[in-house]
């Protein structure tokens, strides 16, 4: 892989992406068009996040890659390996050790710090897309701060279901201005978007958009006074580490409908178990490396 430059992308491309990132940081929540490149992995597999990561990485960085909260899911493994090969950076599974974390669908449970960058992979960056398919229209709506359609949609949800029937990719408003898609994270993670000490960057490769939340940006999940936003999760504790405050995966464990609930954030779960926490089905000590 020596034929490629550091982190794969050529320097001109990285500069172009950094400019888009800077513009995104300057206008929090605004979707900045950028000339997304074809990457050696498919569109939809995180090419936007990969390009943002490539543009931010320095040789001193420690990289963590997660998908569904886990470091060992196949696509997380694949992306981590890509940067090990093309950038030779150190990698880690520990959230606290990482200086740059690329994620798909989750925000780590451990609080982030000012020394960290969180890069999200974004499939559809436009929060209004499923209400209005035309980009020309949605850009106009953002420009005019015309978000009535979104409020009508949320209201119709309440009328039909008694609550806002959006469980992930729950729309947020950034610093009272732009409505933003937080990527398909579960709405449980939405509160972590706001006032985060870390820089949060969002890359959508196929849709050619980058947007950003600078540190300590106010991010509010859309709701109504009489139907306030609730960050929901499965009503269980983790069966491995016993945590009652983490987002859980539901795992079917037998043919009789038996289930267990485990932390989706594998690093968080593992460090809790190493610290001696044991859940309903956990085995103390066994997971200790």
């Amino acid at each position: 892989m020596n034929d490629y430059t550091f982190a794969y992308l050529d320097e001109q491309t990285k500069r172009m992406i950094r400019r888009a990132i800077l513009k995104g940081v300057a206008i929090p929540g605004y979707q900045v068009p950028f000339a997304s490149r074809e990457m050696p992995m498919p569109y939809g597999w995180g090419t936007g996040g990969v390009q943002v990561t490539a543009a931010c990485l320095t040789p001193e960085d420690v990289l963590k890659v997660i998908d569904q909260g886990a470091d060992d899911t196949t696509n997380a493994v694949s992306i981590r390996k890509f940067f090990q090969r093309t950038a030779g950076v150190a990698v880690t599974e520990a959230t606290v050790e990482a200086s740059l974390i690329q994620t798909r669908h989750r925000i780590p449970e451990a609080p982030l710090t000012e020394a960290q960058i969180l890069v999200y992979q974004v499939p559809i960056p436009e929060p209004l897309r499923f209400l209005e398919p035309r980009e020309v229209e949605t850009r106009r709506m953002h420009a005019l701060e015309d978000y009535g359609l979104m409020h009508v949609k949320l209201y119709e949800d309440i009328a039909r279901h008694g609550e806002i029937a959006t469980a992930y990719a729950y729309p947020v408003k950034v610093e009272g201005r732009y409505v933003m898609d937080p990527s398909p994270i579960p709405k449980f993670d939405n509160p972590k978007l706001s006032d985060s000490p870390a820089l949060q960057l969002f890359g959508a490769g196929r849709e050619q958009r980058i947007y950003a939340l600078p540190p300590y940006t106010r991010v509010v999940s859309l709701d109504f006074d009489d139907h306030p936003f609730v960050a929901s999760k499965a009503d269980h504790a983790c069966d491995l580490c016993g945590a009652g405050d983490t987002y859980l995966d539901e795992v079917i464990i037998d043919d009789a409908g038996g289930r267990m609930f485990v932390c989706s954030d594998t690093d968080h779960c593992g460090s809790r178990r190493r610290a001696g926490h044991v859940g309903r089905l956990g085995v103390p000590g066994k997971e200790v490396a």
Partner: protein
Amino acid sequence: MYVAVKGGERAIENAHAWLAEERRGDRAVPELTVAQIREQMALAVNRVMAEGSLYDPDLAALAIKQARGDLIEAIFLIRAYRTTLPRLGASRPVDTAAMACIRRISATFKDAPGGQVLGPTFDYTHRLLDFALMAECDVPPAPEASATPGPVPHITGFLNRDGLIQTEAAGEATPPDLTREPLELPASRPLRLQALARGDEGFLLGLAYSTQRGYARNHAFVGELRIGTVAVEVDIPELGFAIEVAEIELTECETVNQFAGSKTEPPQFTRGYGLVFGQTERKAISMALVDRALRWRELGEDFLGAAAQDEEFVLSHADNIQATGFLEHIKLPHYVDFQSELELVRRIRAEAELAQAQPEAAE
């Protein structure tokens, strides 16, 4: 008891090894060479070059071999390689009027200067399986005639002389490049043509066909279809003149379409244009029809709500590498989002059941 999706790294490595073995197939059968693919699967090579946006028959053949004949996968390999290449310069516009044609037909005139040349076409073959090809058999050389000297002028040029077809003014502006700048809408015609030239052949074929069947119908004649090689010239600043750096094969299609005229303009024919790498005439004709359908605004026609007229729809969905990536990404784990939906549906169902059980409490 708990078996999570562990060991992703080893699973990936083993999957790759298996894939390589499957690609090779039965080892008792001789391995395909890249040269064989380049020479004997030339139309597949052409499609990969066209939609991969890289003119290199050897690399396209390699990509086809590596992709086990999956042409979209091969196009993807070429695109991912292309994006790493430096831009050394831009060529002068190629002169298709000076093309050395191997095929040149017009459906609008029985004959024209330069003549009709069928060339190597499937058009009048009977689609009967040639079982002789099951065995290796030598093909006798095709009869040859000496090349007709002299230029082969564009057919539409004859119409142009009489003012019967709309003149396309040459622009001085550098055409935009959607591989270097994000696609912004509305797009100019050069940008649309670039997107169409890279677009998926099947998608464009379907759209073009829909215009023929009445979705924004604009009856198209193939004014001219030509295939052949053109010289690629690059201006060398140190020399002060252009030198020829390559010869490439192209397919060019110009359609002649009706135009009813308006209050300000008398009736006149209009054009659709297709230009594609290699011998790729289905794609070139499709491109010309879709190009013409997308020109409704500049030609003062009505928007009929047809897909082929809808610039944002066409340009957003023509790229098969974007499409296949996003389509296939739903294979990736989505269990975090699914879990949140599961909880939502359970909660709403529980509330509904509660309301049914206690009807008086519902209101």
